[in-house]
């Protein structure tokens, strides 16, 4: 018990929490943007893989780290454009289109990696972002600039959604597209824009993994984090502030289980298999989904394809 308390007091622990939370924050914001506009984007898992790979590759080829981040965002945006074309343009099932994009993006990234590095024993590395030691804030100064970016993006996205005409328009197409059209706004244009922007964020989330958290690309990097983000959006009631809270909460438990695993002491003296600890995040996401399902204030037009002119 005292060990746990000690843990909670250590800066290293909270540093780990922030580190784990960063891709979740970025990914959840990305899904949030898409779903606020009324479109489910199950491509996130694949887009994160693609973002991780593209960002890393660009840096490996000699570009600086921020160019890598931009490249990852661009990759995400491109995949988002495809998803928009399929779901908004062609009104295909958002579920199947998203899954298809996850499969495609993962396959393409893996393929491209193998083509670029046919014979490697250990994955080639790059120099990742350095911790922001110049920052006078404790815990935060052990994090990289991308974490700061993620934290800044939360109020920024909230600002855009709630305080700008563009954000209002995006929210409206996710609630009542007919109302938006009645005001002469383009539902298709707004949805596409939201999906592209959200997917760019997902790409950056992936880039964090290769450019900040680690320094190389592994095939199983993302490991279901994209799906966790989808669950977190529901848990966060589609609000950026709550998304941050949810991501931090989730990361807290994830960091906790990691530490407990490492400490090896088990819980209350009972030795538990490490897999159980690893399963905690997914189970949490499931539980979160179930808890909020009944009360969920879904954007009312979510997953309903809009046919222009239909009244």
């Amino acid at each position, binding site marked *: 018990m005292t060990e746990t308390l000690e843990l909670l007091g250590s800066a290293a622990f909270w540093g780990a929490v922030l580190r784990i939370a960063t891709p979740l924050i970025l990914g959840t914001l990305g899904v949030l943007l898409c779903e606020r506009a009324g479109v489910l984007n199950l491509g996130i898992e694949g887009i994160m893989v693609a973002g991780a790979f593209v960002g890393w590759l660009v840096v490996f080829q000699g570009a600086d780290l921020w160019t890598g981040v931009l490249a990852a965002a661009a990759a995400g945006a491109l995949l988002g454009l495809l998803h928009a074309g399929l779901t908004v343009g062609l009104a295909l099932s958002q579920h199947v289109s998203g899954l298809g994009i996850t499969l495609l993006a993962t396959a393409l990234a893996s393929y491209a990696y193998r083509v670029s590095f046919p014979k490697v024993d250990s994955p080639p590395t790059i120099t990742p972002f350095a911790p922001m030691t110049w920052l006078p804030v404790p815990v935060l100064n052990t994090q990289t600039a991308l974490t700061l970016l993620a934290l800044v993006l939360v109020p920024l996205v909230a600002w855009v959604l709630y305080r700008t*005409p563009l954000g*209002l328009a995006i*929210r*409206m197409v996710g*609630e009542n597209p007919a109302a*938006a059209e*009645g*005001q002469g706004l383009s539902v298709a244009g707004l949805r596409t824009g939201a999906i592209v922007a959200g997917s760019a964020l997902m790409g950056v989330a992936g880039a964090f993994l290769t450019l900040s958290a680690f320094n190389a690309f592994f095939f199983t990097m993302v490991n279901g984090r994209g799906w966790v983000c989808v669950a977190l959006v529901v848990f966060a009631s589609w609000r950026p502030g709550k998304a941050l809270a949810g991501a931090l909460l989730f990361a807290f438990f994830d960091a906790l289980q990691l530490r407990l695993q490492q400490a090896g002491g088990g819980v209350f003296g009972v030795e538990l298999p490490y897999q159980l600890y690893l399963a905690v995040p997914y189970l949490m996401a499931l539980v979160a989904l179930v808890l909020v399902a009944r009360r969920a204030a879904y*954007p*009312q037009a979510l997953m309903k394809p809009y046919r222009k002119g239909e009244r």
Partner: protein
Amino acid sequence: MADTVLRLQGITKRFGSLVANDGISLALERGEVLALLGENGAGKSTLVSILFGHYVADAGTIEVFGRALPPGQPRAALAAGIGMVHQHFTLADNLSVLDNVLLGTEPLWRPSSARAAARATLRDTAARFGLAVDPDARVGELSVGERQRVEILKALFEHGTKRGARILILDEPTAVLTPQESESLFATLGRMVAEGLSIIFISHKLDEVLRVSHRIAVLRGGRLVAELPAADADTALIAEAMVGRRVAPAVKRAYALGEVVCELPAGPGSSSLQVRAGEVVAIAGVAGNGQQALAGALCGEHAPAGGGAVKVRGQPLPARPRAFVRAGVARVPEDRQAVGLVGELPVWENALLERYAEPAFARLGLRRRAPAQAHARAIVERFDVRGTEAAGLATPAAALSGGNQQKLILGRALTGGGDGRPPTLIVADQPTWGLDVGAVAYVHQQLLDACAAGAGVVLISEDLDEIFALADRIAVIHAGVLTEARPAREWTLAAIGLAMAGGGGSVRPSGETAHAA
């Protein structure tokens, strides 16, 4: 009050062979309330949609404040000062009143919304017109009357790049309001007129129209058939103008009446309904007045509004479709494509949608195709369902034309009285909607034949011609309230028109002309 703010000249619009608007010319003065009356299908919605830019007229011109209005552009209509409050609100429940009103008033690229200014303007506008709303309330929590106020405010609101409307079109605004809310609305209309706004008020409720409007225009069959100051209006006259002069329907041969086959319990304010074997009871009413709930209860989809249970042949039935089918209720739903048929499945499977599990057609979970297809073929032949020539009974139901789909549904319903007996009760909800003359006549004949064979028929329809051709007794539904079903010959056209407009069974004394101030 002398200048014309809106002038429609010779507006004509065709949809295929249907002439929705035929040479309509109207003028609207400043500070005037013009009421637009007419039955469903009379052309009111089309005219207004043309005005607002959703459709382009085939002929005719529109002038707003002396300037020609470019056709087919809602933005142009908005910019010219025309605002519309639709019957079906376009509001986002999860967003606040301010959000809903603010949409589209500022250019998208602005980095910040002038929300404080907008909130102030909103409060101002609301106060000016007597439309009390809380800008930060969530729309989903508002009452229907409050939501309508938000819709009206949307039109009147002036902010950013949006001008407030000077001409307001209200489409059936009191259809969803309580009497008190309607009073509140009339007060608002009065203030709008005082501020120099002009209003087009679409309604089918005569008493309200007489109360608030200065002039009345009546549409029928796409044409403007009457236009007169409200002061000169007589309710009976107007009602007849709405429903038109008809040749007195041939007296329908009355069939021998049998036992009571269906009883619907009375609801709040509504009469109960009894149907006997051999009779047709028609429910007349303007669309959207509660027909869906009534049909749903009679088809077993849900319990009746007033509680209790529907009784068929004296037996109360649980609110389950299967129970109704087994009790011999033949159901013809309003939405033939989404509710009546499964479009992707072949005709023969649709023909058995309700009876596929009966012993004649399935044994131990295995379907007996031969009897099933024979049954389907019999339906197709007997009911003249066309469209299966090319691919036979395997043709997907969605490939049939509307008329043939209806014949298929009808055939299925009329041959499915549980184990092949003729049905006990037929519930036909808008059975001839969208059909050509031939198909309509066919459907009517089938219903009458079923009656002769001893079934009771409940016919829900918006078409008075149809009702008078078929019904023994007629009840009228208005705002969810069902009147007593009286013998057809006791209804005059005027009385039915009035009842459909909410005037109950009595005729208002004419000359009552209390206008909005």
